[in-house]
């Protein structure tokens, strides 16, 4: 799994730094600028749901998750892939990833956001 987490606004400027950060996390290096354009998948959070709550990916296909929150501070966490990001109102976070194993990976909000917090879950489904 290769992933890069970064604010969208400064993506180009910090590409190399972010890639180095991803290297530290994953032990893998991927030069983003050499990749073909990745498919962008937008996931929006609002109390107390993710939209969409089910996302299908293809194994080996690079995607960029564009994450945002419509109301309060949230978290987007995929423990099975060791991915997470804070979702700050007014900002878009991106996670670039290339899933290398098929399977289902739960995601959740891991920043307590109110009475429906426990219901804020979803699933990444990586298909062959």
């Amino acid at each position, binding site marked *: 799994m290769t992933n890069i987490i970064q604010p969208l606004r400064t993506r180009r400027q910090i590409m190399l730094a972010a890639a180095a950060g991803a290297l530290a996390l994953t032990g893998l290096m991927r030069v983003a600028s050499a990749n073909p354009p990745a498919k962008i998948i937008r996931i929006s959070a609002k109390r107390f749901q993710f939209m969409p709550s089910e996302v299908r990916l293809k194994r080996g296909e690079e995607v960029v998750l564009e994450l945002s929150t419509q109301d309060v501070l949230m978290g987007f966490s995929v423990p099975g892939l060791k991915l997470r990001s*804070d979702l700050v109102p007014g900002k878009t976070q991106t996670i670039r990833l290339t899933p290398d194993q098929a399977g289902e990976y739960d995601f*959740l909000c*891991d920043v*307590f956001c*109110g*009475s429906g*917090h*426990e219901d804020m879950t979803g699933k990444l489904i990586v298909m062959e």
Partner: protein
Amino acid sequence: MQQKIARRDFLKLAGIGGVVFASGLAGGRNALAADQEDFYFVQLSDSHWGFEGAPNPDARGTLPKAVAAVNSLAEQPDFIVFTGDLTHTTDDPAERRKRMKEFRDIASQLKVKQVYFMPGEHDASLDNGAAFQEFFGKTHYRFSHKGVNFIAIDNVSDPTASIGEAQLQWLKEELAMLDKKDKLVVLTHRPLFDLAPQWDWATRDGAKAVELLMPFQNVTVFYGHIHQEHHHMTAHIPHHAAKSLIFPLPVPGSVPKRVPLAWDPAHPYQGLGFRDIEAEAGKAALEITELPVLKA
């Protein structure tokens, strides 16, 4: 220990005592500091005062019943700890304070007046613990009782489920003052280890706290949050989750969704309860007895 035996016999004869669980490793594993006296305390957790819903049609009656159950113990505990989620969360700061006041009024009916409160995320995560502190004081602290040290760790006032560097530094400094052979009890709300991160049953920097606790030979962690009895070891450190006083939750990872177990009219209050914890001088392990809200 005559008193203790009498109390255990009473629990058994009255049919209210659950299985006695010896916390930690069996046998005289480690040397103990000498000056401890026998005592026991009670852990209550996750009453979620203010919750309404099908998982507990007696939501306003369960906490008072638990208070009555504790008050009916033949021998009263030295003190009581309440490991978080005293109230159910609300966006309305006035309503949050109303729930805390009602909770405090009910808890004040306990015969034992020494009660240590800790916050859960439902109490503290939406206002960084402000309302909790108004009603119950500090969210992390240390105390000692009859030769046993207790430390309450707050892993909920930060909504990211973190203890935070400042509190970890405080913990390090507090621990530096203690004898590593002393019995040490840690009280917190969330598990300090990754029990089920996919269900938010973890503390983001909990491993740092566990690392600080590792040099202590006789340390035990009691927590809440997961609404069920659960026992886990990280190296020599046992971690014990308590039942709740509102609704039980599924065994970690046993079902796709972390939803409350349904109320069973044939067995009301099933899966709810509290526990007594006994610290016996000269014995490394703590003895845990699970107790129901109502006798079966």
